[in-house]
């Protein structure tokens, strides 16, 4: 049903008082080869800079033992990435030369992204304002039913997979061999040292309910407000942040606020 018709007569520009076709002339900009090459070199240079910065930070932390704030790494890397992305957008993707509406589209999409991230973080990051207990990830919350591996008939473990596989490996090869393998597998460029695992410190994490939630009927030390002489609330909050396993052993320590 497509039918060739004559090229558009010039008269249309006259009939188009709102300038709909006004920017078509910008569409066919040809970027100079020199520009493209320069941009490529700048991008490669920034890649080197961002890698260098990360190495420098690592050097400062591991060799000079100066603890950098956590955000430094992110801010530096993201700033460089943003510069690189802008260069790609402007010169490779021709936003600099094409119809400005394309830039507007892209900016709106970034705005939507920013709103998404901002409000999600705003909510998930500020849970504990009134009652600090609400801010914590429950140390071992969950619905259970994790299988050891992907097979449908794999046994269900009520443990974090990390712990299950570690225990299993140790049972398989013995603790000495385990530690030997661990020291080899964590080779130098892979950052973290490999603290030897002692066989006594293994069960750190049980999905299900938080340890201490029900069992720890702690002495009535901090509950003098209770209106009657009953023992205090067994609402043992996992005080230790969930992400530091060393600080959160399974044994139900009395919760302290």
């Amino acid at each position, binding site marked *: *049903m*497509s039918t*060739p018709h004559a*090229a*558009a007569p010039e008269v249309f520009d006259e009939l188009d008082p709102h300038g709909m*076709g006004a920017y*078509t002339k910008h*569409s066919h900009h*040809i970027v100079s080869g020199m520009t*493209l*090459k320069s*941009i*490529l070199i700048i991008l*490669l240079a920034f*890649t080197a800079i*961002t*890698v260098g910065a*990360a190495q420098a*930070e*690592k050097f400062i932390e591991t060799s000079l033992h100066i603890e950098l704030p956590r955000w430094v*790494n*992110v801010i530096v*890397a*993201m700033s460089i*990435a943003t510069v690189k*992305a802008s260069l*790609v957008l402007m010169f*490779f*993707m021709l936003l600099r030369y*094409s119809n400005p*509406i*394309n830039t507007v*589209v892209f900016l709106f999409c*970034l705005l939507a*992204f920013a709103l998404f*991230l901002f409000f999600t*973080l705003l909510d*998930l990051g500020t849970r504990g304002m009134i009652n600090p207990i609400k801010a914590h*990830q429950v140390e071992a919350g969950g619905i259970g039913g*994790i*299988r050891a*591996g992907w097979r449908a008939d794999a046994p269900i473990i009520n443990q*974090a*997979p*990390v712990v299950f*596989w*570690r225990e299993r490996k140790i049972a398989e090869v013995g603790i000495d061999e385990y530690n030997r*393998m661990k020291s*080899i*597998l964590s*080779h130098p*460029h*892979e950052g*973290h040292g490999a*603290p030897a695992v002692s066989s006594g410190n293994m069960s*750190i*994490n049980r999905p299900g309910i938080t340890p201490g939630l029900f069992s720890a009927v702690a002495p009535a030390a901090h509950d003098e407000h209770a209106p009657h002489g009953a023992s205090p609330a067994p609402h043992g909050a996992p005080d230790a942040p*969930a*992400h530091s*396993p060393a600080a959160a052993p399974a044994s139900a320590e009395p919760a302290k606020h």
Partner: protein
Amino acid sequence: MTTLDTRSNPLGADVQGGTEPLWKRYLPGHHWRTADEEFDACTLGFWLFLATEVLLFAGLFCGYTIMRFKFPQAFANGSSYLDWRWGTLNTVVLLLSSYTMAASIRAFQMDRQSHGRRLLAATFVFGLCFLLIKFTFEYTPKLSGWFIAFDPALSHYTELVDNKALGGLFHHVAGYGGKAPGQFFSYAFSEDPWEPLWWSIYYCATGIHALHVIIGMTLIAWCFRRALFFKAYGPSHYTMVENTGLYWHLVDLIWIFLFPLLYLIH
């Protein structure tokens, strides 16, 4: 994406239309006044599409941010298993491919057909390199413990090599594999209970990105074919190659952010 290109059957046109390259014979869709307007509309449409792609990845970036916020140690540990040198190499490969893609569009704009085709082919090869590096040196060893023999990382683990396959081309390192997402995780030497989550984010982000690389390469191959057989792109009509380029640059753009977020944290 059918609307990105000419409506007429290029093969039929070629048979009937003599030697004129396809781009000279291109006519815009019947509802457009001029080819320029169609080009402009296609570009705008494609930018809208790119916006949706960015927002698709926005979900992953948001998940990444929240999870890293919650479990910084798991992310630091997890990231330390990645070799930043492969990441950097892949970044360089993608940047080079972006350059060749942009240069290829420039060549078609100037009707330098064979030059444009060569650059398109180079882009495709760079994309292939990216995928090969990703799968051979990153995904496969981490998931299964099998290394390719000339992987430089293998030298660290010679003590633990317990199996070889295909005449020594592949080496298996005991205990190295199993760094898989979520429930698939079976690596025995992790230090943080939430490390499977890091691998989930890693594989989702890089996997969906790799999928986009594959889609981009398919588009490039399609452009190459049309350029080779029909000379479909030239100074007055290069919509499809332009939009393929935009798509490819977006893939690069996403990687520019993924690279430091995944490889350079500690």
